[in-house]
């Protein structure tokens, strides 16, 4: 038989094609498809050998193959992976400090003062300018200046690694672990993307074909600590755990505590994936065929453009939409008084028993409720609530205004304020754990809904990490109190 398909200049007249197909299918079964494929490739080979000149053939191994042997080797595979990831995170954290401070000065000092001056000039009533400027504007400005620089660094760096071709190698290296958890190796990529932003991580699970394994990746993405949560971990790790270490070792202990929390998140990813794939998401593990494309130099300008437009601005825009009303709500609950106390004070009193049980306190829980739209405002909200409601220390009086989010550059001062608010080392440790294990932010929840179109999975993705956080924090608090 002739298996020539689509040959240039071939005969295209086809009498009774369907009849031929039927009779051929009877005789061949799967082999027909194989023969056709073989013919495609033979034809492609013929054409390329005619029209493509292969020049500069290397003797020995090409650069690609040598690089692959290092990046997936038994000795260097995992260290290279950790080093690259650590490098990206370090560049993000270190590089974002200065632009974040500049944006904060611009929006929260100059812009803020200008708006208040304008409001005074127009004769706006205090409650209106308070709500709009101290609440809505400040909430949005805070998220903007804390969030934009790290994302504008993280996403392009990540996209460049992607463009270079390294990320499939990560999936290749980690597949064994994900396979054991009943998940797909490509989940490694959505997990890493989640370190930048969980909403972006959820979207990136689209590369996983099997719906079952994609759901596992979506439900566990929140265990990757996103950009919005790093600042909380770094601050608390520094002022509570770093301070426990002897002088000189403080920053080392602080950094280790942050990395340990991150690795704990990775451990939870594997653990919860394994539990899900044996319970609600039981099923056949799908097949795994992963292309490892050749490396290529990243296209820097294109990478910058696409990662800034597609990822950074999209995520920032969603966060701003969420943060602005959150700022307004924080101002309102701090300034509306019911029965001699602000609503915030009532809520803190109401949440305090639960907070005690979790080794946290009412202020932290209230901050986590109002900061569902954006984790970036956790610390400023906690500081404001602690200063205005939780403590009556005259030496700290007047450092914050009700409803106006506050932050201080001086770690010792923050520690003094929080200690005056009743914080102990247990509070610090449990806040770090709760930062890892709590419900996703509203942007992420919305993204999960958009990707799954299922109320059930969205609810599970929201409640699962929260319940885990409650269980872990309550257990640790109980253990510490029983042993001390």
């Amino acid at each position: 038989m002739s298996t020539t398909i689509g040959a240039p200049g071939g005969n295209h007249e086809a009498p009774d094609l369907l009849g031929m197909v039927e009779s051929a299918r009877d005789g061949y079964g799967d082999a027909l498809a194989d023969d056709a494929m073989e013919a495609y490739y033979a034809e492609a080979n013929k054409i390329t050998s005619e029209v493509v000149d292969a020049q500069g053939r290397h003797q020995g191994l090409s650069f690609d193959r040598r690089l692959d042997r290092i990046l997936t080797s038994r000795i260097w595979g995992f260290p290279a992976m950790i080093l690259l990831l650590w490098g990206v995170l370090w560049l993000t954290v270190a590089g974002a400090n200065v632009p974040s401070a500049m944006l904060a000065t611009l929006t929260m000092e100059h812009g803020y003062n200008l708006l208040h001056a304008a409001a005074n000039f127009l004769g706006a009533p205090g409650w209106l300018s308070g709500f709009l400027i101290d609440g809505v504007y400040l909430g949005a400005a805070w998220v903007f200046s804390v969030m934009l620089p790290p994302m504008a660094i993280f996403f392009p760096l990540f996209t460049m690694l992607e463009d270079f071709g390294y990320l499939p190698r990560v999936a290749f290296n980690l597949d064994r672990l994900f396979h054991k958890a009943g998940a797909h190796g490509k989940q490694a990529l959505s997990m890493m993307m989640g370190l930048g932003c969980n909403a972006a991580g959820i979207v990136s699970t689209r590369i996983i074909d099997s719906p079952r394994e994609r759901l596992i990746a979506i439900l566990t993405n929140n265990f990757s600590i996103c950009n919005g949560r790093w600042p909380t971990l770094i601050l608390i790790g520094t002022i509570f755990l770093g301070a426990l270490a002897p002088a000189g070792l403080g920053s080392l202990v602080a950094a280790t505590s942050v990395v340990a929390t991150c690795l704990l998140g990775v451990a939870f990813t594997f653990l919860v994936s394994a539990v899900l794939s044996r319970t609600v998401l039981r099923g056949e593990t799908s097949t795994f065929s992963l292309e490892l494309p050749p490396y290529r130099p990243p296209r820097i300008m294109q990478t910058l453009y696409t990662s800034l437009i597609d990822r950074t601005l999209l995520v920032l825009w969603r966060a701003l939409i969420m943060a602005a009303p959150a700022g307004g709500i924080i101002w309102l609950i701090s300034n509306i008084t019911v029965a001699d106390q602000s609503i915030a004070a009532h809520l803190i009193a109401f949440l305090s028993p639960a907070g005690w049980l979790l080794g946290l306190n009412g202020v932290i829980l209230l901050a986590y409720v109002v900061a569902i739209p954006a984790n970036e405002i956790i610390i400023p909200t906690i500081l404001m609530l602690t200063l205005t409601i939780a403590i009556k220390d005259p030496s700290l009086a007047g450092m914050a205004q009700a409803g106006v989010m506050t932050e201080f550059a001086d770690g010792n001062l923050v520690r003094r304020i929080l200690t005056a608010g009743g914080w102990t080392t247990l509070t610090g440790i449990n806040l770090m754990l709760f930062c890892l294990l709590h419900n996703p932010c509203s942007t992420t929840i919305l993204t999960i809904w958009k990707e799954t179109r299922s109320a059930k999975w969205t609810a599970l993705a929201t409640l699962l990490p929260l319940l885990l956080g409650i269980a872990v924090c309550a257990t640790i608090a109980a253990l510490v109190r029983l042993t001390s």
Partner: protein
Amino acid sequence: MQPLIQTENPTPVGATTLDRLALHQAGRILALGLEGAERRRLLDLGFVPGARIEVELENPLGNPRAFRVLGGVVALRTEQAARITIALENPAS
């Protein structure tokens, strides 16, 4: 007309399966013991009977391994590699 290799009986004498090849060992694909979407996906990736295939990479934990076939590199888990029948390449050639 009979196909050269019957996929229902895919192990002629002297053949082995892809998972048994050592790192950097090469062979020719005889048959794919897979069906449906999985089979089509592998055919699309270049796992065609007759093609030369070489074990290119092994991940740090030993599984999956990546195979060079038709100019591309594709990683497969051991269970899938075990379904692909291979004729060992003559070491002299």
